[in-house]
């Protein structure tokens, strides 16, 4: 049966369809929103510490060697240059997040994942890393090594 658009039944039907449609959309949004929020993990509360006393003696690190130490849950490369200076750099490669290592043969810092290298100041020298590693200040308290985040 043909019903003219201006008949009251037709416009009422359209109004009800509109209400129903928007209700469906609103319901879908209210179901999806918590799910989408649930998928994003909460931000880890950044430790406010800036100073970390390590359980490592400064004399444990021989010249031209290095090791990874956990600092506030992140890996840090603690190493001694051939000249004898103790230095610390964030160990997270600035390319794609691998953990770098001290390479004694060349006295440089190397990321094994994509063959990126840094010098002992943390400057990106070759390979894909786009930025230098961040240095940490190295102090000694008694025998113990203390790292300070800038």
């Amino acid at each position, binding site marked *: 049966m043909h019903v003219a658009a201006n008949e009251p039944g037709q416009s009422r039907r359209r109004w009800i369809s509109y209400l129903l449609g928007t209700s469906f959309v609103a319901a879908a949004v209210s179901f999806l929103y918590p799910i989408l929020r649930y998928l994003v993990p909460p931000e880890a509360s950044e430790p406010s510490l800036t100073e970390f006393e390590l359980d490592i003696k400064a004399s444990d690190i021989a010249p031209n060697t290095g090791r990874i130490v956990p600092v506030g849950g992140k*890996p840090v490369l603690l190493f001694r240059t051939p000249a004898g200076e103790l230095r610390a750099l964030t160990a997270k490669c600035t390319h794609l997040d*691998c*953990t770098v290592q001290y390479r004694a043969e060349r006295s440089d810092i190397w990321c094994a994942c994509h063959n990126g290298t840094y010098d002992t100041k943390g400057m990106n020298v070759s390979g894909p890393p786009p930025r230098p590693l961040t240095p940490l200040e190295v102090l000694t308290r008694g025998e113990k090594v203390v790292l300070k985040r800038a």
Partner: protein
Amino acid sequence: MAGLKSWTQERLGWDELAHLVQKKEVPIHRWTIFYYLGGMALFLFTVQVATGILLLLYYRPSSAEAFESVQYMMADVPFGWLIRSIHSWGANLFVGVVFLHMISVFFLKAYRPPREATWITGAVLLFLAMGFGFSGYLLPWNTLAYFATKVGTDVPAQIPGIGHLLSRILRGGSDVTGATLSRFYGIHVAILPAITTVFLGVHLVLVQRHGMSVPPGIERQGKPRTMRFVPDFLLRDMVGWLVAVALLAALAAFLPWELGVKADPFAPAPAGIRPEWYFLWMFQGLKYLPAKIAGIPGETLGVFFLGGLALVLAILPLLDRKRSRLWNAAAVVVLIGAALLTVLSLLPRKSMP
């Protein structure tokens, strides 16, 4: 017996299904062998589902226990080595067969109308297969997998704007930790299987609906002879599946899948870090990308390039409307490039200490 048959027939309607099965035919021509690849992929997928379910009975998805539970399976559980090695080898064989299936469908132009949707669902299934491979790789929680996942989940972070959010969602935090393992486990055993079920279902229904495609060159010579799918083609299919099972068992027995060393977030990435072979071309490509190209970070460009490549692959039947030969040339270039990068990534490194 006749009573049971008519009882089930009235309630389930087997006859319609039996009729469809009897009607299904496979064309016979010089390229018929490529029709076996889809069935082979499907078979290897069911092997993955079966062995995957068995692995669930012993596997523990936490950073403290995952490595040990796989070690226990490999060393102590009767035939645990077999189930796990078949799952690992099967995954690689499966991805390999899926690639071959796609390459043959491409060169035989089986994506011509009306089979565009079959290709598109197939491309999505390829991405899902790679997702399975990537998420499953981390589950044993060994050093290789740990760093490969660090790199792999940092790649989406290169997308401007939403990259970091994407990477956080994938990792379940800002770093690869036990939270990432839980997430990848959920993705590997629940989310991807659910999505795959839908796409695989549509893919298979479409294959039945349109029947096997006859390559254009064969079509021009007239309608080829056919063989019945049941039993003629299916029995040949099953010979191939038996060979696949034998190959998997032999690989599992003679080359058991290695477990490696437990992941240590506070150890440097060891030399020789590499992902599964089907990601090697991307991995090698990332090494060659300079830090900046025309002021834009190299990795960002790389991610956009890969995204573009995936998009072109997925909607290829909609782009290749005129069946231009340029597409074949482009595909050959991409395949040779990927093969070259893969070989380069396997060569010993000069700068290794």
